[in-house]
């Protein structure tokens, strides 16, 4: 056969094509093999966490979630946010996949109507000098304490300071604070909350390497997100924190409230260790930014 320039070209390229195919066949496609080189989302190799001086898994550090659950803990598309004519992309909210296991919050039918009403009125702020101030409006908008579990998935860092008898969880948002009592004490840390609070009354213990925090004593006024998901004062949250790498906590929470939901439901997502050198919490005490919003109707000159 006569060797034309085209054939010559093809013969020249063939080894490259062949070798490319061989290389592809040689590159591992199997996920398990790939995991030895690339971390797989959702998978953590077995991990034994370092211990504190008193022999407990060490949760000290600054942590943050990177889900969009504060906007909506269920699946949500991106949306414009309030006043897009002024705020543009500053005020727009991204979409995200929900953190609710099973996808949907199991509301009782009448309770679902209340969630929808909350959402419609999330920016209706009417501050009276009594608890009617809580009837409408997202508490986050008003810079009120976010409650649990919402504080754990807001897009701000929080710090865990762990001691034998107390674990302090300090949230940058409005310096919200949880004191997690690691022992029962009839006077100083009784089992039941002496008074209701926004961040709840928490007792913690370890189950193996998992920190379990049991929280009750909630006021009924915090929301789970900006979408109006809510609870009553019967809310009971059980959280499980497990260190799964030097840089991650796997967080799960079981939420129970027989007044609002037909059965308990769970959320889960990873918490990430903030790794900036010299990372520390700063002040995000947003009260100073919401005063006009809250109290404007009582100002001498409401336009100021």
């Amino acid at each position, binding site marked *: 056969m006569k060797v034309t320039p085209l054939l010559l070209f093809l013969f020249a390229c063939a080894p490259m094509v062949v070798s490319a195919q061989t290389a592809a066949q040689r590159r591992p496609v199997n996920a398990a093999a790939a995991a030895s080189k690339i971390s797989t989302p959702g998978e953590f190799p077995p991990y034994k966490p370092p211990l*504190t*001086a*008193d022999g407990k898994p*060490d949760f*000290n550090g600054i942590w943050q979630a990177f889900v969009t659950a504060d906007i909506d803990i269920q699946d949500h598309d991106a949306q414009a946010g309030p006043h897009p004519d002024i705020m543009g992309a500053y005020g727009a909210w991204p979409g995200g996949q929900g953190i609710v296991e099973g996808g949907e919050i199991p509301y009782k039918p009448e309770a679902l109507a209340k969630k929808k009403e909350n959402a419609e009125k999330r920016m209706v702020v009417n*501050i*009276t*000098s*009594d*608890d009617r101030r809580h009837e409408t409006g997202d*508490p986050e908008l*008003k*810079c*009120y*304490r976010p409650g649990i579990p919402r504080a754990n998935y807001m897009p701000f860092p929080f*710090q*865990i*300071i*762990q*001691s*034998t*008898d*107390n674990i*302090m969880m*300090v949230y940058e948002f*409005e*310096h919200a*604070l949880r*004191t997690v009592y690691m022992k029962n004490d009839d*006077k*100083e*840390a009784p089992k039941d909350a*002496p*008074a209701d*609070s*926004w*961040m709840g009354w928490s007792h913690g213990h370890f189950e193996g390497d998992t920190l379990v925090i049991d929280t009750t004593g909630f*006021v009924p*006024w915090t929301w789970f997100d900006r979408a109006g998901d809510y609870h009553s004062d019967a809310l009971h949250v059980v959280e499980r924190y497990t260190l799964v790498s030097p840089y991650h906590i796997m967080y799960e929470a079981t939420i129970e409230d027989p007044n609002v939901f037909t059965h308990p439901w769970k959320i889960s997502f990873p918490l990430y260790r903030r790794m900036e050198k*010299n990372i*520390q*919490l*700063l*002040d995000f*005490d947003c*009260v*100073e930014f919401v*005063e*006009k919003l*809250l*109290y404007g109707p*009582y*100002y*001498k*000159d409401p336009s*100021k």
Partner: protein
Amino acid sequence: MGNRSGVSPKALIIAAALIAAPGWLVAQTNSPSAAANKAAKPEAKKAWVLPHTPDGQPDLQGYWTSLSFTPMERPAKYGNREFLTEEEATQIYKEGIQHSYEFTFNDRAETPVYDATVYALSAWQEGVAPNRRTSLVVDPPDGKIPALTPEAAKVREAMRKHGPNQDYADPNAPVKADTAEDLNLGERCISFGGPPILPGAYNSNFHIVQGAGFVTIEYEWNNEMRIIPLDGRAPLSSNIHRWHGDSRGHWEGNTLVVETTNFRPGATFQGANPKTLKITEYFTRADQNTIEYKFTISDPSTWTRPWSAIVPLSHMNGPIPEYDCSENNNDAVNILAGARATEKAAAEKAKKISQIN
């Protein structure tokens, strides 16, 4: 007004016992009566051992109150005397208890707000401890805060005249409350101040927790938190400002030394200059129920020299509940609405007068 008129004999006995009990108070004095007091109690008590955290730090943890009857500055009659005699300390403590039993939250005699004893908020009910010091200020040696610099004196005078907190000599005088910014930082639930830690009127309480490389101090008022790193990191740059400043801590022997800078303008101790103010605090566990807390204020643009005070922190029982300030800030609404109602009433009165005329 009920049975609040005196102190029962039982209380005085309890008070006297409390005066005698704290050995560290006696040990700190150089007076002959202190030595005599020691000699009078020959039985050897088990020596107190400073507790340590599991990772080997001196243990400062627990609930502490800064409540005290000791004045900030030394009354002139004590001269350079740092300590009271036992008799003097007992007398001051008794008088303090008696007054605290009558404690009402009132700005003026004519406007009692409510009876603090109903809420267990009198100093006695809150567990005030006696103190053998003549004043909180220990340096300068005369127990007085040093003079202000001329520029600071001007600033202070201006604050007094034009600050948001006018003198309320007349309970019916109009109050300037046009916007929330006319209220003070506490009324706005933004910040209740500190450092330093001082004796307060009530709820003057703190929770100290130590974790790996950090010490936290929770203030009862609004659960405000100071998180103090001990890892030797550099201070924040001067471009960042915080309501309680920003702190760095380290141990010197058994004393936690905390240095704080980066204060926010408008939120500094005694109106000091946030650019030049530095507060150094020293926490030493003196015995099971006491932390000796000393602070040094250094601000060359405000005071002509640094000065220091010692505030005893006494053990108290917890818990410190959640303090939801802004969430329940009925005061802000009532103050603003009250000012509007006063203006409206004054306007209607003026209108009526002009109609008559």
